[in-house]
């Protein structure tokens, strides 16, 4: 595979080192097979609180927070639903049949972590794809330069955070990366209580039962392996453990003052590689275990169980080869397989969901071919088959091909790229088998599928004293067989292949630097259409937009270096979002400002102050039945976002 072919659109730029926010920006080779955005923990202009805040500024990405940092957070890529995004951590797929929607807040963040967001298409060799894109979160690599990082922070709402990372060499040529992170917060911010407020009389309430505490640890080894005198190889092993206690506050209309979720996650992955022919072979294996234990009160508005524990077990592996079989051609071939088991444990206060297992197998191909100097073609394809069974004996299974083609043309100073293909997502366990009586599954569900085309251009150049990098991409997606729980019967809902949607958008990622000044901005414009619904009008059917997708999403930061200090001002703005399925409830635009100051106080030691939502915006104005009404800000007012918050941090770095 070509060097840097993991490349990315949004990661067009890699700073030479973390400290060099205003250093020269360079464009790394970018992908043929897909558009990918990259965010590095070391390169963020903002103080990062969690993994969601790492990827939040990327184009094409909308992070939907259901509260403050560490509250349940979902990821939408190019307007996808959160369960249509695959998430891979340290080479281990975290999303599967049991948990298609992953809480981003539960992802660990360590010094040196890097996130890559594959927008729509992902390399086939990553594993079974997704309908809407893939987030790959890489922990600190043992092969990285030796360094030690310690980052500690304290802030509003009882927030305290610690991240420690260390990479060092071992005797015998091996290397080890270790990382620990921990955080806690109360997140007891105040919000406008819509039920207690009345026109002209605002009542603010304090968010209760919204805190969390989490600790994560990781060790990764990279060990040289010499298969023969002329055939070196490597063994990489990564292990991770997580423990988390998450309070669940519910909505402002239906608060759940005692609900909490205790969870733990353990995963391990190993990769063994060696040279073979004109390339290298590699074998990977992984396993993960997740335990979840939900507690709630009997009278909870959530109407769920008072106690429910469950375990998710997954394991898998792959074998592949990648190399250059011919001049100008890069190829990766891989076969993979996995197994997943969902096992409900003790359930009190509600029927137990059915247990389920799923076995999957797939074959993948990623190929690039430099047809002529300025033109490279790419192809990526997978064939996936899976079969599953629930504890009630219900059996399901399917075989489905997916793939896409791409081309990249270098027309200096611009590089053009385009891709087209199909993606798919198999139904989840709850969609196939139901849950607790309220949700009825359908074992005959078809996988969700979509056709997507995208095209874009990028450039990186110097114009006088200005270093400029710009990438613009547009996309269109036609999705069908989308699965939704349709109200069925007097009180239930049934999974149904009812959804159809069209999405189109434009993504812009821009960076500019001149002297001590630097500007970064990403913008996503999105137009969606729910082709299975109608707006709330009569006389015909007008298709509404999909709820929760902003038409405009802008993240920008401007930095200025003054001596040892870097001053930052930033903006996060979203607009053009609706809250309901008929598209009649417009969510007010919100523009949140932020600012920050970083000062290098000594060699390797930096202190920082970040202020988010600096103007303390806590309400938005909706259309009400008798006139405008104020509601809490948020993607929907039932999940309010906090007002102004502070974070003071210090970072010690030893090494490059």
């Amino acid at each position: 595979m070509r060097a840097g072919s993991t490349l990315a659109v949004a990661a067009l730029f890699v700073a030479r080192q973390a400290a060099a926010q205003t250093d020269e920006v360079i464009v790394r080779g970018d992908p043929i097979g897909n558009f990918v955005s990259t965010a590095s923990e070391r390169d963020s202009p903002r103080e990062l609180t969690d993994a969601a805040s790492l990827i939040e500024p990327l184009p094409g990405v909308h992070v939907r927070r259901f509260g403050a940092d560490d509250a349940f957070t979902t990821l939408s890529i190019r307007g996808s639903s959160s369960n249509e995004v695959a998430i891979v951590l340290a080479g281990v797929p975290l999303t599967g049949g049991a948990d298609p929607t992953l809480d981003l807040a539960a992802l660990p963040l360590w010094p040196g972590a890097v996130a890559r967001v594959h927008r729509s298409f992902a390399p086939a060799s990553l594993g079974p794809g997704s309908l809407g894109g893939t987030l790959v979160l890489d922990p600190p690599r043992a092969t990285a330069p030796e360094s030690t990082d310690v980052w500690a922070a304290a802030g509003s709402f009882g927030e305290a955070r610690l991240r420690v990372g260390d990479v060092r060499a071992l005797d015998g040529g091996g290397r080890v990366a270790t990382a620990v992170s921990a955080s806690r917060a109360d997140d007891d911010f105040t919000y406008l209580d819509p039920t207690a407020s009345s026109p002209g009389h605002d009542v603010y309430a304090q968010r209760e039962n919204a805190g969390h505490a989490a600790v994560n640890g990781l060790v990764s080894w990279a060990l040289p392996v010499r298969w023969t005198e002329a055939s070196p190889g490597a063994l990489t092993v990564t292990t991770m453990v997580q423990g988390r206690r998450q309070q669940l506050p519910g909505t402002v209309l239906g608060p759940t003052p005692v609900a909490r979720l205790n969870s733990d996650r353990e995963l391990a992955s190993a990769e063994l590689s060696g040279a073979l022919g004109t390339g290298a072979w590699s074998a990977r294996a992984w396993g993960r275990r997740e335990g979840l234990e939900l507690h709630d009160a009997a009278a909870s508005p959530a109407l769920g169980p008072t106690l429910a524990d469950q375990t998710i077990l997954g394991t898998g592996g792959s074998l592949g080869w990648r190399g250059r079989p011919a001049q100008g051609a890069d190829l990766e071939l891989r076969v993979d397989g996995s197994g997943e088991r969902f096992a409900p444990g003790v359930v009190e206060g509600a029927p137990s969901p059915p247990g389920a297992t799923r076995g999957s197998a797939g074959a993948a191909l990623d190929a690039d071919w430099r047809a002529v100097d300025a033109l490279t073609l790419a192809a990526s394809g997978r064939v996936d088959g899976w079969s599953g069974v629930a504890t009630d004996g219900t059996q399901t299974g399917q075989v489905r091909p997916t793939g896409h083609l791409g081309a990249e043309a270098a027309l200096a100073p611009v590089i053009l790229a385009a891709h087209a293909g199909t993606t798919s997502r198999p139904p989840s366990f709850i969609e196939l088998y139901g849950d607790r009586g309220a949700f009825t599954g359908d074992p005959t569900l078809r996988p969700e599928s979509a056709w997507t085309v995208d095209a874009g251009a990028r450039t990186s150049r110097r114009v006088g004293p200005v270093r400029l990098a710009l990438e613009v991409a547009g996309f269109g997606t036609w999705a069908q067989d989308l699965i939704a729980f349709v109200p069925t019967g007097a009180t239930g809902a049934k999974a149904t292949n009812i959804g159809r949607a069209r999405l189109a958008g434009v993504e812009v990622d821009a960076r500019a630097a001149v002297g001590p000044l630097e500007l970064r901005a990403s913008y996503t414009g999105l137009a969606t259409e729910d082709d299975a619904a109608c707006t709330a009008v009569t006389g015909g059917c007008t298709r509404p937009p999909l709820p929760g997708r902003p038409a405009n999403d802008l993240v920008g930061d401007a930095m200025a270096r003054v001596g040892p200090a870097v001053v930052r001002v930033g903006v996060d703005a979203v607009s053009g979002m609706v809250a309901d399925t008929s598209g009649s409830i417009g969510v007010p635009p919100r523009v949140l400002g932020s600012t920050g100051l970083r000062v290098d106080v000594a060699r390797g030691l930096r202190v920082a102050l970040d202020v988010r939502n600096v103007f303390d915006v806590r309400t938005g104005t909706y259309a009400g039945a008798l006139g405008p009404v104020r509601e809490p800000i948020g993607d929907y007012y039932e999940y309010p976002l906090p007002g102004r918050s502070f974070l003071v941090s210090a970072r010690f770095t030893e090494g490059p």
Partner: protein
Amino acid sequence: MKAGALVVAAGAVVVACGSASTPAPSACGASDALWVASDYSSSATGALALSGGVTSTVGRVDLGADPALSISAGRAFFVARDTDTLFELDPTCGTPTRQFSVHQASRSGTSDPQDVAVAGDGSLWVPLFEVPEVAILSAAGDPIGTIDLSPYDSDGNPDATAIAIVDTPGGEKAFVALARLNPYPTSVQPSWMLRIDVATATVEATVALAGRNPFGTMQDRDGVLWLAEPGNFDDATEPDAGVERFDTSTSTTALFAHEADLGGSVAEVSVSAGCGVAIVADATAVNATSLALFDPTSGSVVAPASASPLATPGFDLEGLAWSGGAMLVGDRQRASSGYPLHVFDGACAPVERPDAVFLPLPPIAVGVAQ
């Protein structure tokens, strides 16, 4: 019934008229019924003429996502159950004209108002579902008291679902239906009717209902309360489920038509002088709905669900009322022009008119205030 007078000159075109802070109540002319609709994501309300005219207020966040329609003493209320707000509706136009908050500070989140009854002095009585109370607002809308309902179920909340205020021989009384779902949300113990003296705001009596799980609002017709009591929706043959007739003058009650005879669990009931009609649901997982007709005098079933003039493949029929001699039935299955409100003439020998009334969202309730 009004003479089908035009609500909106443009026929079935919806007019979103909620943007003004105080919509003019008489700007829309006459109407035949009011409606409330919701897809449980957003809600709408308005008025309709049987000839096809519809006005509507849509896209207003404070209408919430879980509404009900209450009509009492000639006044109509949009009950935004999830936002603790009552919107009084113009009885002709269906446009919101005033709003009242019934939020109880003792509870964070929604107090979940279910219904509204207007007392002779103009005060509003509102049973709450998430707080075991009946909230009382003055005629001006100020909270003036509550009635504690917690003693009426061992779990501390008897799940009040509906209220009616009636002039009885003993004076003005409020009747509050208590589902008593315990363990929640199952119906395994008898449901009750609470009788409250309006003048003193004190509970006078509890009456065990013959059926279980009073569902939705009650219809007050000449001092008789008609209750839909499905029991449990997964069983259409329960002996203590069906249509209940509660006589407020004597506080006596009886199961008037059994669900086994009607052919399904009763989700809604509406009675006119010559015919009673119920929306019934079968006991399958989809709870397919249909209509059952019964004699409001004898209780004999005229047409069970198996002979329904209207049936749907799922739990689709919602909203049931009589407007003059016409029977109105809401349908949550969208047609090309919107969600139809089916209109039948002929009382208990129903003949359906061609669909002419379409709503912008799936119907929840329909009623006549005038």
